[in-house]
């Protein structure tokens, strides 16, 4: 177990594993996402209440889901950075923060466009929407803080603390639809209950969530590899790898 933990912390070992898995993540991710979206757009039955505008759910839910789960992953990596000073954990936080920012923006944007025909407004300052906006600022804040500090180690520690402070926002997002009276509808998926929508609607939704998850894995591997090459360019193994044109 500990040996595995140390291996996982080694950038060289990670680089090899990531290179091996990336084509699979990309291929299966694209297939699942496309299948989910085409099914959702053209074949799923229309919602009896919201009509066809509900088809936005097939991108709104995956991006919102990823936006929150990327933040939870970043917070776990932040703990690892602070406690074990593992280099790879900090590389992860730095590499995926922009991806989280884009997904959070997408979930807010699709939510606003969905809100117009459904609620009659683009935006309301209610709990779910506001806490999601705070998540967007948290992602922006971690990126800005990392760029503002030149020293790599102090930047890693400062960013880790910021990410951990911001994690209080995650349960607020999750339970906002239950704690407060909001316009936003309650969660579509719950682990403990059967989905409240028919099979023809939630299977494509599940496919697009899984597909986007795999594509996120691909993006994370790629961006972490870039970061590793930049940080470790003085080492012999990166030199050999770059000169051989691998990676």
């Amino acid at each position, binding site marked *: 177990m500990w040996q595995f933990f140390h291996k996982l912390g080694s950038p060289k070992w990670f680089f090899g594993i990531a290179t091996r898995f990336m084509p699979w993540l990309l291929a299966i991710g694209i297939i699942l996402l496309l299948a989910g*979206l085409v099914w959702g*757009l*053209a*074949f*799923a*039955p*229309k919602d009896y209440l919201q*009509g*066809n*505008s509900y*088809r*936005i759910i097939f*991108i*709104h839910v995956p*991006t919102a889901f990823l936006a929150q789960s990327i933040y939870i992953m970043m917070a776990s990596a932040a703990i690892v950075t602070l406690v074990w000073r593992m280099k790879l954990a900090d590389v992860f936080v730095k590499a995926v923060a*922009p*991806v989280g920012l*884009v997904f959070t*923006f*997408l979930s807010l*944007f*699709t939510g606003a*466009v*969905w809100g*117009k*025909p459904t609620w009659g407004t683009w935006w309301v300052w209610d709990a779910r929407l506001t806490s999601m906006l705070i998540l967007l600022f948290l992602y922006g804040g971690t990126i800005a803080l990392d760029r503002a500090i030149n020293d790599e180690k102090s930047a890693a520690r400062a960013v880790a603390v910021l990410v951990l402070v911001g994690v209080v926002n995650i349960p607020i997002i999750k339970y906002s639809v239950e704690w407060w009276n909001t316009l936003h509808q309650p969660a579509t998926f719950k682990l403990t209950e059967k989905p409240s929508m028919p099979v023809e609607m939630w299977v494509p939704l599940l496919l697009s969530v899984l597909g986007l998850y795999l*594509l996120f894995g*691909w*993006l994370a591997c*790629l*961006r972490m*590899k*870039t970061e590793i*090459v*930049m940080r470790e*360019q003085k080492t012999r193994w*990166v*030199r050999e790898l*770059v*000169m051989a*044109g691998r*990676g």
Partner: protein
Amino acid sequence: MAFDSFSAFIAMEGHGPYVWACYSVFAVLLVGLMIWSSRHHQAVMASCKRRYQQQESSTSARPKQAATFARVEVSQE
């Protein structure tokens, strides 16, 4: 198929603009992020390679100067 015709599919009973706006922004940002990230990776790899090659040529082209025992004359003034 949930729609009778292709034009009905595009129109989505009046919700077309909303649905298609979301899907196009999603596609542009996701594909853009993927392409941008992989181009950035290629650029970083290429610039590293260039730097390594420069280092190699600068160390191999000019062989290290052999040590000499020539005395440096101190000015007598």
